[in-house]
């Protein structure tokens, strides 16, 4: 990958991001990838090789449901939406993430203080 300015995703966070984006409204795979890129201001770029397995994994776990529908341009695409279980999982995982990043932030902050 040539773009060094783009960050790699920490392990396991892709699922959370996908859930979050789908929570904004049902969408197809391509749009989900684009949204993640837009919202992160091009920092996060999700490759198809990760995105689609993630979508299928989430569908298999019952957090997402895929439906074939027409897009505005009249093409057939598979739209994903959150299930009740998916919503719950998104809530839990978001909390987890906040706790985790908070904790990491604390440690890094202390670390910086010690170094000075």
């Amino acid at each position, binding site marked *: 990958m040539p773009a060094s300015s783009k960050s790699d995703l920490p392990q396991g966070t892709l699922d959370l991001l996908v859930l979050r984006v789908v929570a904004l409204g049902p969408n197809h795979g391509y749009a989900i990838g684009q949204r993640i890129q837009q919202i992160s201001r091009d920092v996060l770029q999700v490759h198809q090789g990760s995105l*689609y*397995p993630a979508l299928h994994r989430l569908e298999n776990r019952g957090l997402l449901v895929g439906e*074939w529908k027409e897009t505005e341009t009249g093409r057939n695409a598979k739209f994903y939406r959150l299930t009740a279980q998916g919503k719950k999982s998104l809530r839990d995982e978001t909390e987890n993430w906040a706790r985790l990043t908070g904790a990491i932030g604390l440690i890094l902050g202390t670390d910086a203080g010690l170094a000075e």
Partner: protein
Amino acid sequence: MTWVGRLIRRNQLEKQVDAELQFDYEQRIEDRMRAGMSEAEARRTVRLEFGDLELVKEECRDARGLQALDSLLQDVCYALRGMRRAPGFTAVAVAMLAVGIGINATVFTVTNSVLFGGFPLFERNDRIVYITSGTGCCVSWADYQDWKSQAKSFKDMALVHGVPVVLGDRDGFRESRDATLVTSNTFRLTGQRPILGRDFTPADEMPGATPAAILSYAYWERRYAKDPNVVGSTMWVNDVPAAVIGVMPRGFTFPQNQDLWMPLVASPELRKRSNRDTWFVFARLADGATIANARAEMETIGRRLGKAYPLTNQGRNLLPHVVTFQDFFIGSSAASIYRAMLGAVGFVLLIVCANLANLLLARAMGRAHEISVRMALGAGRWRIIRQLLIESTMLSGLGGILGWGIARWAIRAYAVVANGAGLSDQIFGGRWFDNVLDYSMDYRAFAYLAVISIGTGLIFGLAPAHRLSRLDVSATLKDGGRGTHGSGRARYLPGVLVIGEMALAFVLLAGAGVMIRSFLKIDTANLGFKTENLLTARIALPARAYPRPEAQAEFFDRLTTQLKALPGVDGAAICDSAPTANTSNLPYELDGGSAAGGSRPAVAVLTAGQGWFRTLGAALIAGRDFNEGDSAAAAPSAIVNQRFANANWPGENPIGKRLRVFSGDTASRWLNVVGVAPNIAQNGRTEFEPLVYVSYRQGPLRGMWVVTHSRIPPDRLITDFRRAVRSIDASLTIAVGPVSLAEDLARSYQYKGVSGALFLVFAVIALLLASIGLYAVVAHSVNRRTPEIGVRMAIGATAGDIRKLIFRRGMLPPAIGLAIGLAACIPVNRVLKSALVQVSSADPVSLAAASAALVFVAILGCVIPARRAMRVNPVAALRQE
């Protein structure tokens, strides 16, 4: 989800993933073009961006968890490839499995239909029970009515009685056939209905109703050529016109292989509570009721009836007995033979398993390298075990399919042999039942086949799978797969398996040996009388024509007198039980003896006429025979056999002693012992039992066996015999015979011969399998030790030394197996005891023969590998190293 369904769904999913990715791809191109790229340029960038499309798809598939099925398919394909690569091994393994599984399925099917079956075409045979009185035979119509109205454990209950009849038509045609008289609910209870015409209704059993008849399919076919117009026609039954109202389905035979059913008409004679001549009651258990409930309830009802009708219903022997089909119709001796057969083929299957485990172990050593490579490449232990178990169950599954074919053929062959030997007659212990058993594979037999097919695969696959999954990968890879056999206990496993095989084969051989010895002895066994030149027939006088005992006695008097007058005949006499036939036991009491309360001992009581012992060539030992003086008016007399005399009056003169017998709680008058008879075999055994004979003249019966002794072959008397019966009563039919007793006995022994021969077949198969097993193990060890043998030869061992080496190792497992088998066969053979005649279950001749056979095949199993070992070329062997 089924396997196929999953595959189809998989295909659909695959297509969806394709479409989804395609959409993404095209959307991307559109976006690029909208941003100003040319189409060609857009396509190129997107293709680069996308990378390997197949990889993406693969990962989607993994994310869905489809790999389990994929890898299973992979294992199956792998196993198939393995089988194709080793066709010789596969063929041997499948052939052994097919034989083992095939004979197991055969014997299970046969045993299943004999022991757990019932009458053919009955719905839910497992819910049908039979009710009889404590004496084992016969019930009263009046009791049946009370049982039926009072018992709650049954859905319904029906009464059955069989009679011989003369059937005929308007043109004067007459023939003797069997009819069964049934209550009108009988067919509804069995769950069957006539295929033509109508079922019986309660109106048909009213006294005075037009007699109605329902034909069996077989009689309809034979006599009426399946003419549907027979329904509504008239036939003559005992010269009374009867309306044919229906035809039962093909194969429906109940309870014997008879020709027609008629309603059991409740005549005043039948209604008498003391009339206990009706055959039996059968019933369907109510939903939720168990046979234990039914037993308890019927016993309570029986006691209640005993109180209400003390004259006719008091006494233990008259309590109703609820029994299963097996208890009622199959004796314990036949049941034990079938169980032993099931055990025997189970042994054969175990030997097959041991053989295959050994073959697979030997092969496993050859595959150690391959497996190590797979493990080194990341295959988990469980994956390896699963792979090997799939291979072994595929082998056993194939064996099961072929075994099914073998079983289908063998069951048909068995049915032919069994019917030829009158097996079902023997099982049913009487002459009424003729080939009613249906030996077809039902769902239970198929379930059994499936379970043993898969089960054997798991059993024999386990040892090699366990062994291979614990390989030391690096060591195996280093020394090319040869260093894997020597580890610890596992080294002894093949030997232990062969020991087990030999022990099992020996037990089977010993069992077959005693059965066959018993069969050979039976012909020369001492039955206590001379079987030659005896002609027997059973005559049952109809109650309507012979109501009074005097008339019955007069008939048999006239018949025996006429028979004695026939040219060539030197004796004729009657008894209610033919020699060797079954008897009924009655409790008895000695005069002055058994003062203590407790239960009374029972003895078989036979009713015999004058000259019975002389006719059988068994002269009385002491006292006198029954004679004209033993009239109804005189004091009742009895003749006891030697066993009875020795058991009850040891060292005393039995003549003049007194005893009495009981029917229920009612005692007979005191019987004076007037004679001592030699022991005569009864009840199908050759061990003599105590017997008491009472005088026919002092207690006539309607059904008797008539026996003549002649100077000419008895077959030549049959026509004269029939003519004599007809000259006294032209309307009378002979229920059984006349038949030569010696021929009849031979026919009944054939049954024991058939089962003995079957055991021998199983034992020989077991022995062959065990010797193949031994051969394989010895040959494998010779192969493995070729370098060692080469070294031994190089340093001076002679061919004889090598042979000794191989034999010493090779004969050790059979020797240990023989010892174990000897110890085990004596308790195991005891199972057969009830079926053995004058042979001990530890018969030394059989054991010696079995040992010799085992040693012989063990030597055979070692000879070929030993030859090969002796021909090892030391130079070549050492170079190989």
